[in-house]
């Protein structure tokens, strides 16, 4: 009883703040973000479920549709906007994700909300360079190969070797996947080992125990039910598999936080309007970052879903956090 009263107060508090912040471009940070779980509990009591869409409150069923619209609109200019907004640092973040992943040859990657395929491309390049290094090492150790060896090497050069690494890019949005496929073709990445699948992170179209690594980069904050997405991740991972999530998070340094907030709310929607012609989508972007739980809370959610050895690293002072957990 007391719990429901507490949640009632929190929700009404938020409604008041939304009304107050509706006018200004820069909302107050005085109240902390309440996760979707609290409003879900409250809504269960009343019968209809609502969640946050940026700083708005929308019914849960509508959130998925609106997110779909957002990404449909920005798909063509997505990569350009990423570079402009983060000043190219998003490439460093994704490279650091790959370095932390350190994939062994032969692993299968599932990149959810992978959209334009950044992570999948980097993964394939990494594994390829690893295999080349191994081949070079093997060649160095057998300095004088017999003619038999040379002939077998020539014949197997087209294959990736006995273990092939595969990457599957899964996204709910067809437009983003289209852009990704075009990028793959233009970059000349071989279609072998790369698949593009349309799917919902809360209900993945894959069997259990399929993938070695599950990554979701800058996508999980757009999911309506984050815990469902985490449970799906647990389901499709093999035992020993790794869950890795790259997501915007809370900046720890207060000075940096101020700068970051100013930049987010003043610069980014403007850039969105100028480059992509879409102010609202980028307003949603920066608001959804503020609504996402902070590092420790998200770590707790990952542990609740059933992952072990959950750790996180802050990148760029907490602007981005890399969470990692294992299915053991």
């Amino acid at each position, binding site marked *: 009883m007391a719990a429901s009263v507490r949640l009632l107060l929190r929700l009404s508090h938020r409604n008041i703040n939304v009304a107050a912040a509706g006018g200004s471009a820069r909302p107050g940070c005085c109240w902390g973000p309440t996760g979707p779980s609290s409003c879900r509990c409250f809504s269960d009591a009343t019968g209809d479920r609502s969640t946050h869409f940026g700083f708005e409150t929308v019914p849960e069923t509508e959130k998925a549709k609106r997110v779909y619209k957002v990404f449909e609109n920005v798909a063509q200019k997505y990569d350009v906007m990423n570079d402009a907004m983060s000043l190219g640092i998003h490439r460093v973040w994704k490279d650091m994700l790959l370095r932390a992943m350190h994939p*062994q040859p032969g692993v299968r990657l599932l990149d959810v909300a992978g959209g334009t395929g950044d992570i999948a491309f980097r993964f394939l390049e990494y594994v390829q360079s690893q295999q080349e290094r191994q081949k070079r090492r093997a060649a160095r150790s057998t300095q004088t190969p017999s003619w038999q060896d040379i002939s077998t090497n020539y014949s197997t050069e087209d294959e990736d070797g006995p273990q092939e690494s595969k990457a599957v890019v899964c996204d709910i949005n067809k437009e983003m996947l289209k852009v990704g496929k075009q990028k793959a073709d233009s970059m000349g990445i071989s279609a072998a080992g790369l698949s593009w699948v349309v799917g919902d992170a809360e209900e993945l179209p894959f069997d259990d125990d399929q993938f070695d690594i599950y990554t979701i980069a800058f996508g999980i904050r757009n999911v309506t039910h984050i815990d469902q997405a985490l449970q799906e991740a647990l389901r499709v991972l093999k*035992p*020993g*598999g*790794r869950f890795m999530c790259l997501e915007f998070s809370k900046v720890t340094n207060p000075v940096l936080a101020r700068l970051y907030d100013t930049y987010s709310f003043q610069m980014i929607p403007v850039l969105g309007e100028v480059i992509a012609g879409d102010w609202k989508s980028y307003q949603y972007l920066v608001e959804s970052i503020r609504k996402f739980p902070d590092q420790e809370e998200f770590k707790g959610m990952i542990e*609740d879903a*059933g992952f072990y050895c959950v750790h996180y690293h802050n990148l760029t002072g907490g602007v981005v956090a890399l969470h990692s957990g*294992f299915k053991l």
Partner: protein
Amino acid sequence: MAALLRGLRAGRALRGLGSVVAAPTATKPQCSSLRRGFHRAAQRLQDESKSDKPPSSSSSSSSTTYHEHYQAHSAHQDTATASQEHSASDPASEEASGPNTSYQDQGGEQGEEYETEEQLQARILTSALEFVPQHGWSLEAIAAGAETLGLSSASTGMFNNGAGDLVLHFIADCNSQLTEILAEQHKQVQLGQAEPKKTADFLRDAVETRLRMHIPYIESWPQAMSILLLPHNIPDSLKHLSTLVDDIWYYAGDRSTDMNWYTKRAALTGIYNTTELVMVQDSSPDFQDTWNFLDNRIQDVVNMATTAKQVQSTGEAVVQGLMGAAVTLKNLTGINQRR
């Protein structure tokens, strides 16, 4: 009741509720759920070591302490909880011998989980050791080891230190094996079944036993040594070395509390390290050159100890002689006369 428990355990999302719901049903909820947890862990550990399905809990031949604990306690429980345990143990064994080796679904027993995580890491590293001759001390060996346990090679991400973790695990393993052997010998001596060895012989045998554990990996041992010398690994490797040397001296009977404690351990550290280096480039049959080198170094240390004692006693004798000569001179020249 048992069905309800089974249903609860099957729901991963209801982990936290497991202990809460069990409270009104059992007399000792925490203990019984913990024991069930330990039992499940014991069952799973059994499954890992044996490939065939374990028989019912009471007749299994496991010797894990958790399992014995469970047996002892189940005998003391009242019939209600005992029957509950037994009915609960069947679904547990069914789950444990299921197709996956996952450690999920713990019903909220956090204490058991942390143990199992480290144990799992230790098991992965132990199984990685057999791939060291092929891949060297590296993440590939750990990945291969994880795969033999049925885990994906992505689980190597758990080891932040990579190859360093593997080498340090191996060293810790060897050290604990040596300590067990020395303790066993010590017990034998105390029971009067064996003769106590002289210090020099004891040291030689201990160092030889310890270094022989490197023989299966001697090809790649230089790589392991260089990994241990990396700056972030030096504190750990020094810690292992110092505990090793301390253990050997302790079982050799050293109870000194003065400067000797330091000099003895420093001497043995020097002997151990130099012998290890000789062993790495030794190509004689059964490393005979290495053991000869070891003998010589220990003999050197022993000689130096006796020489030091001799020098000290000679020094004292010389000083006494000089004092006597001085007194005689003083007498002769008459300085010593009393006026």
